[in-house]
Structures are given as C-alpha cells and as structure tokens.
C-alpha cells in the first residue's frame, strides 16, 4: 500500500513537471532552443549563441508595419548598432508558402541587399513552428534573450502604432531601451509590451 502511494506521488510529480515544461514561453524563463536554416541554406541554432544577447525579429517584407521600419532605415540602424556591440540579431520569417512575406531564397537575397539589411541571419520558419513556439503574433514582433538563455523582453519594437515611417523618429524604441540598459549592466526597464503589426502569416 505504502509503496503504491509513493509511486503514485512520484508519477504525479513527474506528470506535473512535464506539464509545466510543455507550457507556453514566458518572460524570465528559458528561451527554447531551435534550429532553422537561413536564406543561404546555413543551419543556425539558438544555442550557438549562448553567452551573447540575442534579438529575434519577426519579419515580413510585404507588411506595411515592417516596411515602416525598413524604409526609415530604423531596423537596419538597430541591427548595425547592436551587432556592433556583439548582440546577435536573428530575423525570422514564419510566413507559410503562398502567404505574404514568403519568398524564394534568391529573392530574399535581393531584398536584403536592397534594404541594406544588417542583421546576423534571416531565418526561414515556413512551418511556423518556431513562431508559434515563441508566441509571435505580428510583424514586427520582438524578443530579447540574455546570455544565460533567458527570455527578458517580448513585444513591440516601439510605442507608436502606425505604418508611417515619419513616426519612427518620434517613437520611444523599446528594443534599444532594454538593450542599452542591460548592456550597461543596469536593470531592465521593461519586460513586455503589446506588439503591433500585420498578423504573422501562418498557414491557415
């Protein structure tokens, strides 16, 4: 009788912990590892970058909210500034084939060139698995992961919800705000915000 009860208790504890691990991504919890191919066909793993800050940027070059940040050169400026400070910048496209934002790799190469893209990798997530794993809702939608692999920020790139490139200069940039603080060893000034943009074009 006693053994059965202990066994049941152990089983319950195991199931409970599995349930918790299978739960959704959360701030201040470990950011789940993933492996994706970039547009040049190179395999990129999140765990490759342990020990560095990593920015995830959900992208769709067809979306007017993404165009706002690329036409104004805002995104490229952030990419250049922070990769220059040893931050890894991964853009992730979770558009399903046939949906807006999904392009052939060669076309991605062209777009990247034309926009003067300065991120570390443009990753292809056609199945949407990683987008859904990270709760990506919009493009853009931003995540910041610290060198210990913990998710420290999720949400909008800045505080002006619009498609107008002119608004970028008047906006408070949340990604810059968080990175500037943590790179200087200061406390994180914010953890989350509501992201704005077009919906991520997952398969229906």
């Amino acid at each position, binding site marked *: 009788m006693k053994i059965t009860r202990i066994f049941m208790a152990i089983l319950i504890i195991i199931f409970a912990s599995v349930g918790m691990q299978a739960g*959704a*991504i*959360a*701030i201040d919890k470990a950011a789940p590892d993933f492996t994706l191919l970039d547009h040049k066909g190179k395999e990129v793993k999140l765990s490759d970058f342990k020990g560095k800050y990593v920015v995830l940027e959900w992208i769709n070059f*067809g*979306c*007017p909210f993404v165009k706002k940040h690329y036409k104004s050169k805002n995104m490229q400026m952030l990419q250049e500034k922070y990769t220059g400070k040893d931050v890894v910048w991964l853009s992730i496209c979770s558009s399903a084939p046939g*949906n*807006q934002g999904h392009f052939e790799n060669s076309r991605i190469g062209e777009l990247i060139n034309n926009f003067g893209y300065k991120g570390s990798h443009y990753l292809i997530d056609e199945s*949407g698995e990683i987008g*859904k794993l990270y*709760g990506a*809702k*919009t493009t853009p939608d931003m995540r910041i992961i610290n060198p210990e692999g913990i998710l420290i920020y*999720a*949400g909008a790139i800045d505080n002006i*919800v*619009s*498609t*107008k490139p002119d608004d970028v200069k008047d906006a408070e940039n949340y990604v810059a705000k968080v990175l500037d603080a943590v790179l200087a060893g200061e406390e994180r000034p*914010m*953890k*989350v*915000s*509501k*992201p*704005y*943009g*077009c*919906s*991520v074009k*997952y*398969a*229906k």
Partner: protein
Amino acid sequence: MTLNIHRTKRLILFAAALLMFSYTLHAGKTKTKFLEVEFLSDVKSIIPGSSFRIGLSLEIKKGWHTYWRNPGDAGMEIKLDWDLPEGFNAGEIKWPVPEKLPFAGMANYIYEDELVLISDIYVPPGFSSETAVIGLKANLLVCKEKCLPDSFSIRKTLPVSTKSTEIDKSIAALFDNIESGLPEKAAFQLNAEILNGSISLLIPHDFLEGKSFDSIEFYPYYKGIFDHGAEQEIINEEGSYKLMLTLGLFADGPPSRLNGLLILLDKNKNKKVLEIDVPIINKS
C-alpha cells in the same frame, strides 16, 4: 406683370441653387481606395449649450475588413482625430459590436461591409459664430489577405441657430437604430477573480434569466493583455458558469479590472451583448 414672373423665376432658380449648394456643403462625403465615407449629423443646425450626434459612415470594400477599439492579436484600431471649433468636445466613439475573426491560433476583432461610428458633440454655450466646421482625420488599417493603411480627412459645416434645433429626421432615425444595437451595460455586477494566473468571470445562472445560450464569449477592451485566440472554457459550477480567460505573453501581470463585452449566443444565433466593467479579485 412680366417683370414679376421673371423675378419669381429667378428667385426660384436662386433658391434651388442655394439648396443644392448647401446640400453638398452639408453632405460631407469622401472616397478612398477601400472606403466610401459619409459624415452625418442628426441636426441641420446646432444650438450653443447643447449637444448633437455626428456619425461617420464607412462602407468598406467587399472582402476587406478593419478593426475594433481592441484589434485583437494583430491589426490596428480605427483612429479618429477631431478638429473642432473652440470649446467644442467630442464624446467617446460608440463602437458597434465587432465580429471575432479566429485564425491560426490567434483572433482579431473586425468590421466588414458597413459601419457607423457615432459620437456626441457638445457645443459650448458661448459659441457665437454663424457656422461651425466639424473636422475629422481618420487612420485605418484595412486588410484582406494582406493589410494596407488607409486614411482620409472630412469636414462638415453646420449653421448655428439660436432658435430650437432642426432635427434631421432620417439621420436621427438611423442613429437611433444603430444605438439600439450597441451593447447594454450589464444590469448587475458579475464577479471576476484570478487564481494562480488564471482569470475567470463568474456568471450566475440567474443573470441569464433562465435562458440557455449556446456560446458565451468575452471580448476585452484591453489591448494586448489577453490571449485572444485561446479557447474560453466554460465550467459549470454550483449556481454559475465560470468563463476561463487566458493571459497572453505580453501581459505585465493581470489587469485590476475586467472590462469589455460579454457576447451571448442562443441556439438560433440571436446575439445578446453586454458591456461589463468589474474588478478582478485576487484569490491566489
């Protein structure tokens, strides 16, 4: 004799022209790529120290949609910027009930086809001009498979009268009809609680007045707090239904109040919509 007939004819023609001119002045219409817009008022003249209603009528291109005050997981709510004469005030937009559009585990709150957004406009008592120009700038996101921004400016000139106001009967009837479809404020307070990160709304059976509903859903006013695509499970407890709501990744802790719309659908698809605003009690 002849002279009088000519003068009368001219007067009639002049009056007709004036009427047509004032109609176009008052008409307040415009068109964009996705919208046919009309700016309507329920009065033909305004009186200082009173209020009247302005309605922005939008006919949205077929197959496209725009968004509610809380657009949901993506999109952008309709943004209105008033340009009013000195001392005038525009009340809150009376948002009609949106449709919930679920997709790929997410959900948005949208408007399709036709939409009329009504606001009360308050005229200050001391307003002494002969006319008032009511202006509005709108910014929208209009989507089908992809999304495109849309915007317009529109204005309406109304004469100011010191006598009794002249109601535009057909517009007033239209506005009354739209307002009758707006959510009712919930007759009595429901209870909302949060326990171990899970928010629930308790709806006593009494509240539903013995009617049975096929579905009960909550559309929050808050942007970005709730997981809009998550299923809202209903648990039948003793004496009440418990509607389970899920906080999203972007919530910095739970809100202190639950406000938004409770949508009740009966088996004949009749919709009852209630506006609720209740404190969330922490039971953790």
